[in-house]
């Protein structure tokens, strides 16, 4: 069974909000109608977004890390939002695991947003229906697009490539390998919703260099310009 999902690399995300704007642009131009903006040019501008980037500071100065944290629907495998919906407007697709809202059925009761632990559903104040990330279901299967463009807007927009997209049930997919090999984790595992989206942790990139590697025996230190040190082992040239 397929479960499409995003894998977001927090080590790579620079907090540029390109995914936010491209998500908004794509989804506001779609057949489902515009995503509302309230007071866009006034005080307290706000509106509906399917994806937000938040920023957290971890640690105490000077030992701090700035973590940019993109947040959208996690397309949970056991979504808390779906069974509570009284109309069936919220549903999870069997074929690819995407959780969607049918805007024509939604009565705008907001009950699903109460049940979701992550606060990723946003009620659209203009259309009066619940909205959320669609995993760009209207892009990823669009055969009029070239194959390499059949990806979510946010993934295509991300300049450093922090967002990966694929089937987390296929053990050989790019996303499964990334989760496996780079410590992928889910948010609030205690909520038991089994999020399909995963996050890759921040990590320090370090390389261990031994001293004999600094003065490689086959690359004479004289040529490197390093001062001659008679305590070092002899170079290959000197030996010959």
């Amino acid at each position, binding site marked *: 069974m397929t479960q499409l999902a995003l894998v977001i690399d927090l080590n790579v995300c620079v907090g540029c909000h390109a995914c936010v704007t491209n998500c908004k642009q794509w989804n506001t131009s779609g057949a489902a109608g515009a995503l509302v903006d309230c007071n866009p040019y006034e005080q307290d501008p706000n509106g509906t977004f399917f994806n937000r980037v*938040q920023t*957290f500071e971890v640690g105490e100065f000077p030992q701090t890390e700035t973590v940019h944290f993109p947040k959208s629907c996690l397309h949970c495998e056991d979504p808390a939002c779906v069974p509570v919906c*009284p*109309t069936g407007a919220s549903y999870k697709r069997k074929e690819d695991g995407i959780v969607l809202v049918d805007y024509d*059925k939604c*009565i705008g009761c907001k009950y699903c*947003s109460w049940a979701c*632990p992550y606060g990723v559903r*946003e009620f659209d104040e203009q259309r009066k229906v619940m909205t959320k990330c669609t995993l760009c279901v209207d892009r990823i299967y669009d055969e009029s697009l070239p194959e390499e463009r059949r990806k979510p807007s946010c993934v295509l927009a991300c300049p450093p490539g922090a967002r990966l997209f694929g089937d987390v049930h296929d053990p050989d997919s790019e996303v499964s390998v990334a989760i496996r090999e780079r410590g992928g984790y889910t948010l609030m595992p205690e909520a038991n919703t089994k999020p399909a989206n995963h996050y890759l942790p921040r990590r320090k990139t370090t390389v261990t260099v031994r001293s004999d590697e600094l003065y490689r025996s086959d690359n004479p230190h004289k040529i490197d310009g390093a001062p001659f040190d008679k305590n070092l082992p002899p170079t290959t040239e000197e030996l010959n």
Partner: protein
Amino acid sequence: MRPAFSVLFLTTLIGAGQGLFITLFFVELLAGSSLSAGFFVGGSFLALVLLGLGGISSVFHLGHPERAWRAMTMWRTSWLAREGIALPAFIAAVFAYGVAHWLNLGYTLVIGVVGVVLAIVLFVCTGMIYGAIKVLKEWAHPLTIVNFIVLGCASGTTLAAAYASFAAPELTITLAQAAFALTVLGVVTRVSSLWRNATLRPTSTLQTAIGIRHPRIVQKSQGSMGGSYNTREFFHGKSASFVRGILVMLVLGVFVLPLALVMVLPLLAFIVQYLGLLAERWYFFAEAQHPQNLYYQGKS
């Protein structure tokens, strides 16, 4: 959570209506022969008014009330859908009960039993709408359902006493005693849940919310400047002293004043208790700490 006024009115009005109907049924069961049919017709009418007003106020909670009929479709999984079926069914039973008394059709006790069962089913559905949301630990507990039942019955019985003081004065004192007992029971069940919620420890933390194990994490931005649905829907947005004020109104309005008044002025007791229940329901929402708030702790 932000208290939704339509829901405050819905749950308190139908709760009192259900309690009133259950009381009417027991009055008929235990003392029916001594009363005129008019008492039950009037009582059913009163219950229908409350249920109707509750139903109307629930519509204001919906973004698309014209599609409300769809809310009955997913009764297999959703307690909200089950409530959407149980409420009209109960209204129909109360209507049938009133009509049967009015036209002297008989079988009133049979219809009454059906009505009482539906009233309890409706209480359970209403309570489970909140009780079934696992991420809201304050709500996800059997006490939530118990409180909906006990407080609904208490206010309904108080109203029955008030009604009897005009329609059947000889019953007033007995009903007032029953209302007193139910309100005392309400003190026990609601104070238990207040205590439980005040001492609950949240399961989720900022650490599990973003998956970073460090004791000191400070939010620097929320991804929006002027707020969002997330900052509106899940915070009550009132100061701590305001919330404490509501708690005082809850204790005085639902318990202390009605207990003092119900024996002498049952109508005033009901009015005070109803207003107190609005405060109680407000507090019920404000008490619930949604884990999504972990993502909305600060901006700079």
